[in-house]
């Protein structure tokens, strides 16, 4: 196994709840009916378009509003989404254990308008300076897979097998692995720590 030199963390699902959990909590607050759940499942593709900058946050919320038939205005959906994006503080403890020789990168999948409002609350800049953030909406990609997996090693100027993706989305991770990008499925901070130890990225003590 080639040793990783760069570790790339997906923002939503690792540092915050996953985008589907955020949407579920934001939109279905007080309205957890079966039909609405069924409708919400289809929004991952829409979220990918939002992440890549192919649609803006207003269009995203308007589509959710149109398709869910809930009595929540698009502006209220945005407010609720922003409130639901809470920091996962336990991940920072794990990141602090990583030796400085690893390049740490953050893949920002939230649109700029949201990220600007939440980044301070997430305290993300303490671990990732601006030059170590890959903002998906600014990459000019039309698909996550395989475009992003081609883009990432080129952007950070390392062979693909020297990169390691940490992402909670199993399907995306499987696509990354099949493309040749080594990856870890993020389940929780404790599990990630164990995986880092097993891969000898951090010491056991």
């Amino acid at each position, binding site marked *: 196994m080639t040793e990783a030199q760069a570790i790339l963390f997906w923002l939503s699902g690792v540092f915050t709840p996953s985008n589907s959990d955020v949407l*579920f909590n934001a939109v279905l607050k007080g309205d957890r009916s079966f039909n609405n*759940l069924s409708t919400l499942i289809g929004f991952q593709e829409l979220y990918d378009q939002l992440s890549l900058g192919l649609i803006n946050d207003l269009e995203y919320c308007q589509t959710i509003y149109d398709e869910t038939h809930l009595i929540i205005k698009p502006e209220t959906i945005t407010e609720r989404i922003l409130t639901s994006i809470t920091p996962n503080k336990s991940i920072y403890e794990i990141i602090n254990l990583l030796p400085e020789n690893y390049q740490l990168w953050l893949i920002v999948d939230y649109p700029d308008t949201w990220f600007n409002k939440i980044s301070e609350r997430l305290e993300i800049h303490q671990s990732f300076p601006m030059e170590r953030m890959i903002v998906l909406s600014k990459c000019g990609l039309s698909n996550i897979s395989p475009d992003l997996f081609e883009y990432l090693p080129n952007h950070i100027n390392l062979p693909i097998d020297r990169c390691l993706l940490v992402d909670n989305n*199993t*399907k995306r*991770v*499987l696509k990354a692995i099949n493309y040749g990008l080594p990856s870890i499925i993020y389940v929780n901070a404790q599990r990630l720590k164990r995986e880092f130890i097993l891969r000898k990225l951090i010491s056991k003590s």
Partner: protein
Amino acid sequence: MGSNWKGKSDITMVISKQITLQSDGHFNVINITDIVRDFIQSSGIRHGQVLIFFQHTTGAVIIGEHEAGIMADLQELLERITPTDYEYKHHIRKVDFNGHAHLRAALMQTSVTLPVIDGKMPLGRVQEILVIDDQVDQAPRSLIFQIIGE
């Protein structure tokens, strides 16, 4: 060498719960270990067994390591023996076209039972409870949790 747990009680409880997962299928792996832990804790049962039952014929529940490489290997293995793109006899009636998902479900399992000891599942260090949903469309997936014990 092993540990023994013995107990006798006249009060045996059975608690069941249905949960719904968001899934878009196509080998979607959902880690439900923490959800089952929460269920056991909320039941108040300290000793017994917990059953996790997937209520569909196009997916499975397994105990495994939720590690990216293993999941990719499992997906590849299933694709080799039950290819997604194949003319299954199940497709002849032209109702649905998910023959591979039914065969994969039959090869795996739709339920697992785990011991509950001192209010916890004695899972091994890397064991986790995973739902694998191989359906070909987006829909909610239902599971039944049932705990029996005291």
